[in-house]
């Protein structure tokens, strides 16, 4: 039985993520783990995350999971969610500047406190709720998901990768920001598919069927 590991580093709604993955992959084993060898042996890895960048990085280091996360991102189908997407870059502006995992070059930036919408209306921070995800590439993880479908977001920072060829989707909230990236066996999203009803479940299902090509 193929094994999907949801990486536990004490940050985020792991149970929700695991339950949603179980729901779409009843024929695969889903475990929540902070054990490096279990993660290394997994067939697929989900890297969730919530909270502050500083805490995420510290918790990963305390649990000695940094290397196995980076290795997984090079070897097998890997799905980053929310902070699990942001900290793949090498730097975040959060907490006065945090060095992150550095899998890709780029910065994680703050939306700013004076964000304005199309009619010059004030936009609240965090960006919280259901927004349209504009797919910019064809990808197995977008299969059976209509372009511009709404997904649930909650974040105050957004990813700005240097290599724009990574971009798999964008989203508008005062600015046009990167809401998904894809490269080789890695796919990562800013939104929470585990909380995005049918389209979110479809994305997770696509991930559980994806071999990373």
């Amino acid at each position, binding site marked *: 039985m193929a094994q999907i590991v949801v990486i536990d580093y004490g940050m985020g*709604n792991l*149970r*929700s993520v695991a*339950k*949603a993955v179980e*729901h779409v992959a009843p024929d695969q084993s889903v475990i929540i783990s902070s054990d490096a060898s279990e993660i290394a042996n997994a067939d697929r890895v989900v890297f969730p995350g*919530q*909270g*502050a960048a500083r805490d995420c990085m510290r918790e990963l280091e305390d649990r000695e999971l940094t290397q196995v996360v980076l290795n997984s991102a090079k070897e097998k189908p890997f799905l980053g969610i929310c902070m699990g997407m942001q900290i793949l870059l090498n730097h975040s502006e959060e907490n006065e500047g945090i060095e992150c995992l550095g899998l890709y070059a780029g910065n994680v930036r703050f939306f700013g*406190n004076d964000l304005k*919408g*199309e009619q010059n209306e*004030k*936009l*609240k*921070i*965090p*960006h*919280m*709720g*259901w*927004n*349209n995800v504009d797919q910019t590439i064809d990808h197995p993880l977008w299969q059976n998901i209509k372009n*511009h479908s*709404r997904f*649930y977001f*909650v*974040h*105050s920072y957004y990813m700005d990768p240097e290599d724009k060829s990574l971009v798999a989707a964008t989203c*508008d*909230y005062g600015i046009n920001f990167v809401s998904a990236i894809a490269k080789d066996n890695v796919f990562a999203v800013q939104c*929470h598919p*585990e*909380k*995005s*009803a049918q389209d*979110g*479940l479809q994305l997770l299902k696509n991930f559980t069927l994806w071999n990373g090509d």
Partner: protein
Amino acid sequence: MSLAKRIIPCLDVKNGRVVKGVQFVDIRDAGDPVEVARRYDREGADEITFLDITASSDDRETIVHVVEKVAEQVFIPLTVGGGIREVKDVRRMLNAGADKVAINTAAVFNPEFVKEASERVGSQCIVVAIDAKKVSTEGEKNRWEIFTHGGRKPTGIDAIEWAIKMADFGAGEILLTSMDRDGTKIGFDLELTAAISDAVNVPVIASGGVGNLDHLVDGVTKGKADAVLAASIFHFAEYSVEQAKRHMASKGIEVRL
């Protein structure tokens, strides 16, 4: 196309059952929380909020099991409030499958708790619930005070100042209930809602007083709310969540359909 305004059905849960009171008394039974949550999810609810109004802390475990069961079947954001007093309560609810917790009375008695909780689990998980009542008299400038204990105890704290302070302390969202309107079905206190929404930079959920679908529209257009919360109009099947969304969309409000 941009961020949708959210419709959030609210379930008041007492001893594991959904109930709804009128101005916090006269409790009516409205069903099994898991079944009700599943129905709302099918109808397209954007989130679901549970407020545990169980009186005794001995019975708090009940709500944890409710959240666990709902989170296994419903894949939209869940907020849980009621009896959240310490970081361990926050963690317990998040571990059970809640995405956010609503802190009310405990924030008033210990504002630092909001700071501590948001630093530990992130602002995105912390909703501060504010129960406000108008205290100004006719002809005076509008003023609202916050009340605790289900609207029974005045605190002397100005609602707008409190909302600003809570956002500074790390609240990721404000759940604003007008105690004057709660259960009355005459609509939100729109002046209160707009005043708070203008004062803070975090999203504001309007609550208290929804009796028809136009009230939801007004909450967004006149009250400037980012989300609207209602209980009884959905529980007793007067309207479905989908009807509510279609009505809002017909008035030019962006919703997830």
